[in-house]
C-alpha cells in the first residue's frame, strides 16, 4: 500500500487547520497491529550492576522470592517475567569490545565496537570506539514508524542527570550497521515536554499564528531539503552520508509539524516548579517527570518506543537522599560488605521509583483496560555485578500487561547461556515483527527469541 504522508494530507486537504481526528480518519490503517490497541515498549536502564547473589532468596519458576533490593516488586510479581543470568557474550568479540561499562551500556545495540574514540581498551595501538550498529529501541521504533503513518516519533530517548555525552553514557544508537552513530538523549524534561506536546488555544488569532509558523517552517524545510539534496551530489560518499542523516532528521521534523494529539487521555499536565535537571539531589523528581512524559507520549500515541535511562552507565551520582556521600560507580567498584549494603539500598530506591512508572501506566484508561495492559517495560543494566564487571549474568525483568504476549508471574534462569541479544529479538517479536530472528552481531545471537516466554 502506498503510504500517505501527513504532509501530503495537510497540503491535499487545502488547509493547515485540519484537526487531528479528521486526519487520523483519512490515514490508511497501515498494519494489522494498528487495527488492535497498539503495543508499546519502554526500555528502562539502571547503572553499575547489582549484587547477583542477593537478587532472589528462592528461584522456583513460580515460587521465586525477591531479596531485599527487589522487594518493591513483590506487589507486581504476577505481572512480571524475570529473566536471570542472560549472557552478553562480549568476550566473543575479542579486542573489538570496549570496557565492561561501555560495551555493557550499549547492550541494546549488540554489535562490536568501532575505533577512534576512547583510549581505554581495544586492540594494541588503536583506540576503541562506539558500537557499530543500531540499538533495539531505534530499530523497533523505525519499524513501527514505517508501518504507522500517523505516528510522529520513531522513539524517544531520555536520560536523568547528565548533560554531557560520551562513550560511558549513551545507550541508544542509530546505526546503520557498520557505523558509529550514538544518539544523544534528551536530559531536560521541561524542554522535552515542550518539544513534543502542543496543546494550543482554539481562537482565531491563535490559529492564524499557528498557521503562519507552520507555513514558515514547511517552506524552510522544503528549501533546506532541496538545497541539501543538491549539495549531496557534489560530495564524496562519507560526506553524502552525513548530509543524508541530516535530511532524514529534517524529514522526521516534517512529520511532527502539525499540532494536535489524538486521544482523550492525551491531556497536558503541570510540570511544577522548575528544578535543575543536572543536580543529583533532583534525580527522583526529574526521573518521575520523564516517566510522566513517557506515559503521556504513549497516551497521545506519539511513539511506541521509549528508551529511558535513570542515569548514564558508569553513573557516579551521589545518592545523598539515602545518606551516602560517595558516588554510585565508586561504591560499585568496592567489594566490601558495607559497599554492597549501599548498592542494595541504591537499587531498592531505583526499583521503588520504577514502580511509580507502573502506577502511571495503570492510571491511563485505554480500550477497556489501561496503558499498562499494552505496554512492555524492559528493565536492564549494563553489568551483572558491579565490582566484578560481570557480563554473563545479566538480569532483565519484563513488566507490564504487554498485550498478554508473555506468560507472566514467572522466574526463568538462563544459566549464563541464552543471550541478551536473544532477549532483544523477543522484544521485536512482541512488537509484531516476527520476521526478526536475530539482532546484532552473529556471535551475540542464537538466531531465535528466548525460549519459553510467551503465553
Amino acid at each position, binding site marked *: 500500500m502506498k503510504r500517505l504522508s501527513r504532509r501530503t494530507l495537510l497540503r491535499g486537504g487545502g488547509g493547515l487547520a485540519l484537526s487531528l481526528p479528521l486526519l487520523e480518519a483519512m490515514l490508511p490503517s497501515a498494519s494489522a497491529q494498528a487495527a488492535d490497541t497498539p503495543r508499546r515498549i519502554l526500555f528502562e536502564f539502571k547503572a553499575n550492576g547489582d549484587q547477583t547473589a542477593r537478587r532472589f532468596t528462592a528461584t522456583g519458576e513460580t515460587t521465586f522470592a525477591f531479596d531485599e533490593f527487589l522487594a518493591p516488586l513483590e506487589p507486581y510479581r504476577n505481572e512480571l517475567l524475570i529473566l536471570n543470568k542472560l549472557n552478553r557474550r*562480549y568476550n566473543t568479540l575479542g579486542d573489538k*569490545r*570496549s570496557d565492561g561499562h561501555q560495551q555493557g551500556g550499549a547492550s541494546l545495540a549488540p554489535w562490536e565496537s568501532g575505533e*577512534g*574514540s*576512547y*583510549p*581505554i*581498551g*581495544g586492540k594494541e*595501538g588503536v*583506540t*576503541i570506539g562506539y558500537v557499530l550498529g543500531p540499538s533495539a529501541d531505534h530499530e523497533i521504533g523505525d519499524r513501527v514508524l514505517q508501518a504507522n503513518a500517523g505516528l510522529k516519533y*520513531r522513539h524517544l530517548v531520555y536520560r536523568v542527570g*547528565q*548533560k*554531557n*555525552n*560520551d*562513550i560511558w553514557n549513551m545507550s541508544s544508537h542509530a546505526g546503520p550497521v557498520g557505523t*558509529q*552513530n*550514538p544518539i*544523544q538523549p534528551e*536530559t*531536560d524534561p521541561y524542554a522535552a515536554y515542550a518539544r513534543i506536546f502542543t496543546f494550543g488555544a482554539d481562537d482565531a488569532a491563535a490559529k492564524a499564528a499557528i498557521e*503562519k509558523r507552520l*507555513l514558515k517552517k514547511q*517552506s*524552510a*524545510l522544503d*528549501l*533546506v531539503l532541496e*538545497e541539501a539534496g543538491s*549539495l549531496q551530489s557534489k560530495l564524496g560518499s*562519507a*560526506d553524502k552520508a*552525513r*548530509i543524508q*542523516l*541530516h535530511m532524514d*532528521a529534517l524529514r*522526521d*521534523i516534517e512529520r511532527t509539524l502539525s499540532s494536535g494529539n489524538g486521544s482523550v487521555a492525551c491531556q497536558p499536565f503541570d510540570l511544577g516548579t522548575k528544578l535543575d535537571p*543536572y543536580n543529583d539531589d533532583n534525580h527522583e523528581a526529574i526521573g518521575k517527570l520523564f516517566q510522566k512524559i513517557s506515559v503521556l507520549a504513549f497516551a497521545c500515541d506519539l511513539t511506541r518506543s521509549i528508551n529511558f535511562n535513570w542515569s548514564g552507565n558508569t553513573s*557516579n551520582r*551521589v545518592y545523598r537522599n539515602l545518606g551516602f*556521600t*560517595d*558516588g554510585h560507580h565508586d561504591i560499585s*567498584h*568496592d*567489594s*566490601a560488605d558495607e*559497599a554492597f549494603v549501599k548498592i542494595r539500598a541504591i537499587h531498592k530506591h531505583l526499583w521503588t521509583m520504577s514502580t511509580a512508572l507502573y502506577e502511571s501506566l495503570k492510571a491511563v484508561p485505554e480500550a477497556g483496560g489501561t496503558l499498562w495492559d499494552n505496554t512492555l517495560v524492559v528493565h536492564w543494566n549494563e553489568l551483572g555485578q558491579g*565490582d*566484578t*564487571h*560481570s557480563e*554473563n549474568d545479566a538480569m532483565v525483568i519484563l513488566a507490564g500487561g504487554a498485550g498478554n504476549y508473555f506468560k507472566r508471574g514467572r522466574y526463568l534462569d538462563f544459566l549464563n547461556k541464552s543471550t541478551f541479544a536473544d532477549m532483544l529479538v523477543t522484544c521485536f517479536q512482541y512488537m509484531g515483527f516476527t520476521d526478526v530472528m536475530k539482532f546484532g552481531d552473529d556471535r551475540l545471537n542464537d538466531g531465535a527469541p528466548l525460549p519459553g516466554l510467551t503465553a
Partner: protein
Amino acid sequence: MSSKILPIALLAALAAAVYGCQGDIEGSVPGGTTTDASGASPQTPEQVLASSMCKKPAPGAAPLRRLSNAEYRNTVQDLLADVAGVGPALDSASKDFVDEAESLGFRNNADFLGVSSLIAQGYMDSAEALSPLAAATPSLIGCTTQDAACAKQFVESFGKRAFRRPLAADEVTRYTAEYDKAAAKGYDFKTGIEWIVFSMLQSTQFLYRVELGAPKGSAYAPSPYETANRLSYLIWQSMPDQTLFDAADRGELTDKKQIETQARRMLKDPKASRLLEYFDQWLDIDHLATFDRDANVYADVPANLPDLLKAETHAYVNELLQSPSGSLSDLLTGQYSYLNAALAKHYGISGVSSTDFVRVDTPGRSGVLTQGMMLSRDKPTRTSIVRRGLKVRLDMLCEKVPAPPNNVQLNLEALGDGLTQRERLEKHRTNASCAGCHTLMDPIGVVFEGFDAVGRQRTVDEGGKPVDTSSTIAATRDVDGPVAGVVELGQSLANSQEVRDCYVMQSFRFFYGRDYTTADQCSMAQLMIAFRDGKQSLSELMVALTQTDQFLYRPAPEAP
C-alpha cells in the same frame, strides 16, 4: 595553609637526571614506519618529510565538518553582531542544544557531529528565536525600500556572511523566493526577511563548513573563501571577519605566506581567546560543570569554586597564548597563577584583594597540572589517585590503557582499614591482573596527593595521614624515574618529547576536527618540526597548524 618550596639544588639535580634519561629527543612520527624505496623506515620528522610520500602535497582526509555547539554560538554571535541583545537571545536559543558525543576527549570530531532529529529541532527552534531579531535590525538589512529588490540585496549580503562565501545566482533565487512566498501570503517585509534568515540558519551551507576545493597544480586545494573559513574556524572558532572576506574577494589566501600573515594578525585579535575551548576540552576544565564535593569533608569551599578554577586556568592559558614565547613548558611548570581574592583565600595565599584575576606567585604549584584540571575528576569525598594518573597518561602522554578485566574482583577498599589510598593501591598492585594497568596510573597519581580534591595544598590526607608525594614513574617513553612531587613531575613532563608529541597530537585532533591517521604523517612531521623549532610556543603551533599539507590542501575528490 602554607606552601612548600623545594630546595633549588634538589630541583636542579633532578632536572639534570631527567635530561640524562631522555632517549628520544627527536620524537617519532606516529605510524611513521613506512618503508621507503631505499629500504629505510622513516621515523623522525625529518626522515618522514624527506621520504617519497611527502615529496608532493599529502593532505589526509578533510571530512565535512558540522559546526560544533561552540562554533555555532560564536558564528551566530559574529554574524548577528549588529543585533541588539543577540548574546542573551543566543544563550536562550541554544541552551537546550544537546552536547556533542565526545571522541578522544573532544567534542568537535566530524565523525560525531551527525544531525539527529533532536539536533535539527534545536537548530529550527534557535533559528525561529533569532530570525525576528535579525529582521528587526536595519543595519543588517542595509536597504530601506522594503521591497523585493531590497530582499534580494539582503539575500546577497547577509547570505555571503552566513554561508561565508558569495552565493551563486540560483541560491540567490532560492532564498529570495522565501521572501516572495511570505509576500504572496500577505505578510509584511519584515516577515519576508525573517523567513530568509530562518531558512539560512537551518541551511546545510550555514551549519556545515562546506568545502569543494579546486585543482592546484597536481593537487587539490581549498578555494580562497574555504581557506578563509579554515583560518577563522581554526583561530577564532567562528566565521571570517571582513578582512578575511576582502582577502578572499581578491583571490588571495592561496600561498603559505599570506596565510601566515593572516594567522598572526588573527592571533592578536581578542577573538583568539576562543581558543580556550580547546584547553577546556583537553584539560577537562569543562568537567568542572559537574563538580560535586561533600560539604562535610570540604568545608568553607566557595560556592562558585568551579567558576573560579575555570577563570584561573583561562587567565593563565590566555597569557601564554598572547606571548609569542608562551610555551608548553610554561603551561606545565609555572610556579605562579592568576588568582582573585576569593580563590587566593581558598588556596590560603594572602595579599590578593582584587576581584579581577592577577598574577600571583604560587610556589609548590606547577602550571595547569595543579589547577582545576587536576581535580576535575576527583571524588566527592577524596582525591582520586587513579583518575589523576589516568588523566596525565591519557591526555598528556597520549598513551592507552587496557580495559579492566571482566569477572575479576576489584577488591580495593577491602585491603585493610587504616591504610592511605596510596597504600591500598600499592597492595592492589601486588595482584598481577591489576598491576598491569594500575602501574600505568597510580605512580603518576600519587604525585598529586599534596593537593586535596578542591585544589588546596595539604600535608595530610582526608584520613589525617601524612601525604607522600614521592614516586617512581614507569612505562613512559622518557618520563620514567623518581620524582619527589608535582613540581618535579611538571619539569619531567615539560622536558619530555613524549609530552610534546602528545600536545601536537591533541592539537591535530581538535583543530583538524578528527583523529590522526597514518595518512597524516607528512603534516604531523611538519607540525613536530615547527613545534620544536618554535621552542614549544603555543601560539607558534597555532601558526604552524595553518602551514601543513593538511591545512593548505584537500584530498582529490572521489571519482564519480
